[in-house]
Structure formats: structure tokens, C-alpha cells
């Protein structure tokens, strides 16, 4: 067991964890942040995307021990107030169907805009290539990211 200290969505957590524990399972099963889902086993789908010290990561590809001393933001802690502009844009643009890819997609999109506040459609499509959606056909997701960008959605 290893002792780790992680700030998750602003809340300080101290836990004994096994070194093999993935960050995503730590978040879901230990911290209770089940808003971050698991969609694959091979780091391909992006459903589990969170921010680790302000950068998006696939939390199934990070060990909990690697997050020691870090700050993690999940979909549940993204909004500063009621909505994050990206969440609002996803809702407005109907950028979701089943919603399973949505938390990860939003977290990846926020990171995309923080690197590139005014991406072209192509840059959005390239930037989000690590996040799979089986339902929507992606179209409305691209529109949502554009809407969030127009409203200064990097914040």
C-alpha cells in the first residue's frame, strides 16, 4: 500500500492505495466520482478523461500513485458555479445521446480550448480523435466546441 494525497475537484483526499490501482478506479470507487466512466481497457475510448494538474489525461492510463500530490478535476468539479461553458454548449448543441462518452469528451474539449482557444473544425476533429462516441456521429460535438470557443470556453 502507498499513501497518496490528491486534490479531487477541490476536495483533499488522503488514501492508502495499491500501486496497481488505476486513477479512474480510485476516483470512482474510493472518492465516489462515478461521473467519470470506463469505456475500454486499452486507453482507446477517452470516456475516462479527467484533468491532472490542468492537462487532460485518460485516467485509465494513469496509476493513482502517479497522481500523488496532484490536482484532479473531473466532470463533477469542472463547473465553477452552475455550468462550465463547455457543459452548457454540449447541452445546447445536443452534443450527446447516451451520454457515456460525454464527461470525457467535455474534459478533452476543455483542454483543447485551453491550448487553442479558437480551433478550426479540423483542429477540433484532430484534437478530439482520442475520444470515441458511438452514438452522435460527432457532428454536434464539434458544434458544441465551437460554441464554447465563441463564448470563451477555455475558462
Amino acid at each position, binding site marked *: 500500500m502507498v499513501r497518496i494525497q490528491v486534490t479531487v475537484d477541490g476536495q483533499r483526499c488522503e488514501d492508502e492505495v*495499491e500501486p*496497481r*490501482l488505476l486513477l479512474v*478506479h480510485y476516483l*470512482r*470507487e474510493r472518492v465516489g*466520482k*462515478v*461521473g*467519470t*466512466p*470506463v*469505456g*475500454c*481497457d*486499452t486507453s*482507446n*475510448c477517452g*470516456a475516462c478523461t479527467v484533468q491532472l494538474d490542468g492537462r487532460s489525461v485518460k485516467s485509465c492510463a494513469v496509476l493513482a500513485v502517479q497522481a500523488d500530490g496532484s490536482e484532479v478535476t*473531473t*466532470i*463533477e468539479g469542472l*463547473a465553477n458555479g452552475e455550468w462550465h461553458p463547455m*457543459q*452548457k454548449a*454540449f*447541452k*445546447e448543441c*445536443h452534443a*450527446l*445521446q*447516451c*451520454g*457515456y*462518452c*460525454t*464527461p470525457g469528451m*467535455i474534459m478533452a474539449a476543455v483542454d483543447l480550448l485551453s491550448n487553442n482557444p479558437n480551433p478550426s473544425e*479540423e483542429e*477540433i*476533429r*484532430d484534437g*478530439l*480523435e*482520442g*475520444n*470515441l*462516441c*458511438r*452514438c*452522435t*456521429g*460527432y*457532428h*454536434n*460535438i*464539434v458544434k458544441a466546441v465551437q460554441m464554447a470557443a465563441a463564448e470563451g470556453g477555455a475558462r
Partner: protein
Amino acid sequence: MNDVVRPVMQDAVAAAPTRVDGRDKVTGRARYAVEHPVEDVVWAWPVTSTVAKGRVTEIDASEANGTEGVIAVLTHANAPRLGETDDAELQLLQSDRVAYRGQVCALVVGETVESARAGADAVRVRYDEAEHDVVLDARHPAMFTPEKVNPGFPTDTSIGDPDTAFAVAAVQLDATYTTPTEHNHAMEPHATTASWGADGTLTLYDSNQGSTGVARVMADLFGLQVRAVHVISEHVGGGFGSKGTPRPNIVLAAMAAQAVGRPVRLALGRQHMFSLVGYRTPTIQRLRLGATTDGVLRSLVHDVWEQTSTLDDFAEQTAVISRMLYAAPARRTTHRLVRLDVPTPSWMRAPGEAPGSFALESAMDELAAACDLDPVELRVRNEPDVDPESGKPFSSRNLVACLREGARRFGWEQRDPTPGVRRDGRWLVGTGVASSTYPARTAPSQARMSIGSDGVVTVELNAVDIGTGSRTALTQIAAEAMDLPTDRVRLRIGDSTLPPAMIAGGSMGLTSWGSAIVKGARQLRELVGRRDGAIPEDGLEVTADTAEEVRAVSGYARHAFGAQFCEVRVDADTGEVRVPRLLGVFAVGRVINARTARSQLVGGMTMGLSMALHEEGVVDVQHGDNVNHDLAGYHIAAHADVADVDAMWLEEHDEHLNLVGAKGIGEIGIVGTAAAVANAVHHATGVRVRDLPIRVDRLLGRG
């Protein structure tokens, strides 16, 4: 037949209500199957067979049992005995027989998902391995004629003398097409949280497309009364057919919970989903089209060969599309099946029509070229007056209108039919078209509707929202039928204790559930009317059942139609295919919510694009199962694979459908897309790819 038809403008989308669950889904508050809080819960993980055929001779669980956190190891030797059901895939851990690679042969329960997986890794299974047979071949000696094809269509049909008609036809096309194994891969894996109550009741949070049937099957398997089983499916992360019936996850979770006396969570791993939750059979399809020189079909023969498992016969209805899409005085459709050492195939979005349309609509394109005719015009010339096999009139049929409107919007008129002559830098450019169709059906459902003294209407039925937006659309339907604003309607769905309803499948969810709601609303309004609008303190309640009207035989052939137009660019040197434009124009009856409907259609077309270019379960001839059994190797379309995909529909009024007037839209989007892409690739390159997916190696060095 009702007349056409004005295309619905984008403002319909803008005006449509946004989804009622949108907020929960963008904030991470929507709870899926393994996210509902349950006390003292543990995890299970399956051990799957590494051989494709044989018997398990020994399972050594000693190391697994000694693994920290492992609570139990279940095998066929110690697992609870299950009752009978129709689905042999659910007889889990009941025998030592191995029917395919990837079949469950043990289950490890651990305190955490990590310990369960570590335990599963430590289980040693020995087999008496038999020689397996996993390759579909049309000449397989064990090919047989199944009794029926899914879900109950005749296996073969024949009208006139198609062989003679073909032999004497001025233009003949005889071509064979293949489609590979394809996997549904909803983003939420099949998952269940199971807990047993002290009173012997079983509570299941489960990811499925309809829990009325799930509860019944679980009751049969575990020897319970249906009312002792409670299945809750609040949010479901997609299904595409693979969650239409209970899958091993729910049975294993319930077994494990019974064995260890604690609640159990089981979310299948993505790899498990290649063998445990159904898939689309590979198909081999031979099309013979005989036509006059001006493109009028005289004979249409569609022969299909496909696979099932040794456990169960599932025969995909691949050729049914050729029974109704075009006129031809002589036709034959056949399906042959072979039982291989593979998992049982099952429903994947538009079973039948999706692979069948690839063959038929590619063949029509080839015929158009052979007749020197525009492919749109060829289809128009073969438009039937009535359903060719039953002779019934169509309740509405706007295929030609879809083709014409699509052609106009796409800019099809200026198209030069010559293949392989348009070049833009490195890219060869081409365009293609294909028809889409899907049956418009309704299934019996019940709805309980009540009105309180505050005038709020509560609608309860066991519908489910797997992502399509049914929660939103059903609220709209109820509000409209009650003549109330949507905020006066409460909808409860996704719970097996609610009145029984159709699954979200076969494009029948909304039509079936909506019909029950409309009927219930009529009854409720009548009841309120009889009391002159005075609603007693404890409210009024009715339960509507549509079984009778749904089962009444219709005098009409009822189908949705559409046309898909596609532009491709093929790299002249590398064979890379890009699809800059894909346009679908559909006629699907009434559209309840333009926003969610458009998303369904675009999503379906994107899955069709994925089918055209990426999706292929590569058979592992040596070991059985697929070689590429994860999302790293099994490609589905990602953001950058998709460009301008657009869907629209024609206004269509059809009173002969159901109480909603809708045809269902979940599946038609994927029908025809792959053919439209392949036809465009041919137009771009001159290479006719008859085998999906359209891989680079199938383009290079040809043409």
C-alpha cells in the same frame, strides 16, 4: 398513398425541445448500471476460454483463491444451477463444454475490481481441445436452411421463374459481395449491479434495451416469480441491438451475488464484448440482376450465406431488403446458415438491412453502369406500385422523392458517370448514391397514466432511454396527447415494475411506447370528461394496452425510406479514402423531436460510414474468435474520420402506421451508407470493392 412532401428545414431542429436529461449527462450526474450506490458491494470478473472448442478438464483455482481480496471462484462445478431459457448463451457455468473462444468458463469475485481481475488471471484452466471450425464459406458442407430468419421472416421466397428470366435478360449482373464480422460496441460496456434481498428478491441495476424481458428471463433462470425480480435501467450508454436481450453480465452478477451473499458489480471489459454480447454475422451474398437494356429489372436473385454458433441458431435476415425495395416480376431470396465454433451472432443496428443493402445497392450501381443509366434514374425505373411479394399497397413510400430531393441538394445533376477521371491534386474524387429502407413496425406495450388534482399527469411504462432521447420524445407525446405543456407531465421509465413495454429495438421503441401513451391519454381524457373535468383528490388513473390494435393485420406494407449521397476522395497513391460529404434524405413518417431525430440519423449514417471504411472483426483462423478484439485493433469512426454528414427528412403523413404516425428512425440511417461509399469509391477510382470494409489493400494496384 399520401403525397409529398416538403423537406423539413433546419429551424425544426432549433425549435425542438432540448433533452430532459441533458443536464445530468453533461455534469456527470447520470447514473449507469454500476454507479448506483450499494452497500458492501464486491466485484466480479469472468475468466474466458482460450480454446475455441472442447471440454474443460480441470480448473485450478488454488492460486486464485489465495490471491488477496478474492472471495470466490465460480466454475461449472460449483456455480448455482440455472433454470431453462431460450437463450443458450445464458446457461453460464452449467457445463464443461467450450463452444467458442472467449466463452465464460469461470468467474472470480473479489473485494475490488483489481482483486477480481488478479484472481481471474491466476485461474488455470486445462482443456481437452477439439479441432475447431470458425471460417464462413459458402460451400461449407454443413450449410443448412434455417427454419426462419430473424425475427420471424420466411427463410426463402420465390416469385415467378427468376432463373429463366435471368438467363434471357439483355443485361445480366452476377456478383458476390461480402461483409465481415461487425461488433456493436456501445460505449457503455454491458454491466450489472446485482443484490439479493433477505426475502429472496433480486434487484438488478442493468444496462439493457428493455427490462420487461430481462426480468422475465432472470426469473426463469433463477426460479423466481417475475415480481421478485426488479430491474432498474435509468440511464443506458447505448446498445445498438446488443442489449436487446439479457447478456452474461446480468446472469453472472446475480449468480455471484447469490454465491457470496453480497451485492456484486460486473462491468464487462471491452475485450469481453467481442465474444459475449452478440455481433453481426459475416455475410456472403450473391446478387443476380437481370434487366432490359433500359434498366428495368426482370429478375432479382439474392442468395445469402452466413454463420451461427453451435449453441443457438440466429439467422440474420440479410436478403429481406431484396423482397420489397424494387419491382421485378421474378425474384428469389434465400438464406443458408452454418453452425461454427463461434459466439452466437445477434442484433446489430439494422440486422438484415445493413449488410443486405450493401450488396443490393452496390449491385444496383453496377447495373446502372452496365445499362449506361444514371443510378438515381435506374432506381426510379424500378419503383414498385405495391409491395412486390405481398401485393399490399405501401402505407406511404417516398423513396423516389428522397432520391430526387437528395440529388437536388447534393448537386447530383452535373455528375459525369465516367469512373476514375476526376482528380484534385493527389485525390481521385467520386460520388455515389444508395437507397435506404427499414420496416416501420409497432409492438404491444402498456402505459399507466394518471392525473392528479393538481392537473399534473404521470406517465409510467417500462420504456428505456438508451441515448436516443426517448425520455424527451415521450414527454412530448404525452403532453401533446393530454393537451398540456411538457412541464405538467411526469414520465417514469426504465424500471421493470412499470407496465410492460417493447424494448428500444427494431426502430420500434418510440412507435410502440408512444402508441400506448396516446391511447392512455385518450382514455384518461375521456374519464376526466365524464366527470366534467372534476378530478378527485386521489386523482384518476387508466392503463392502456395496445396489444389488440398492434396485432391486427394491416392491409398495408409499412416501411421507412431514404436516399444517401456520398462524395469520396481517394488518395491516388496510398488508397486512403476520405468522405468529405454524406447526405441522407429520409421519409420516416412523423418526426417527434427534430433535434434527437436528426442526431439518430446522423449517428446511424456515421456508423454506416464506419462499416464502409473501418469495421472488421478479423477471424483468427488458428485460435478462433477475432484477432483484433479491442478498440485499438477494431476501428470505429472517430472525429477525424467524419466530415460533413447531414440528414434531413421529408414531411410525410401516414395514418396507417400507429397512433403516433411515426415510422421509427433508429436504424434506417445505417442502411445503404456502405453501398453509397463503395459506389462513390468506384466512381472515383474505377475499382469496384465488393468486400467490406473498403481497405487500402483492396484499392491499391487495382483499377
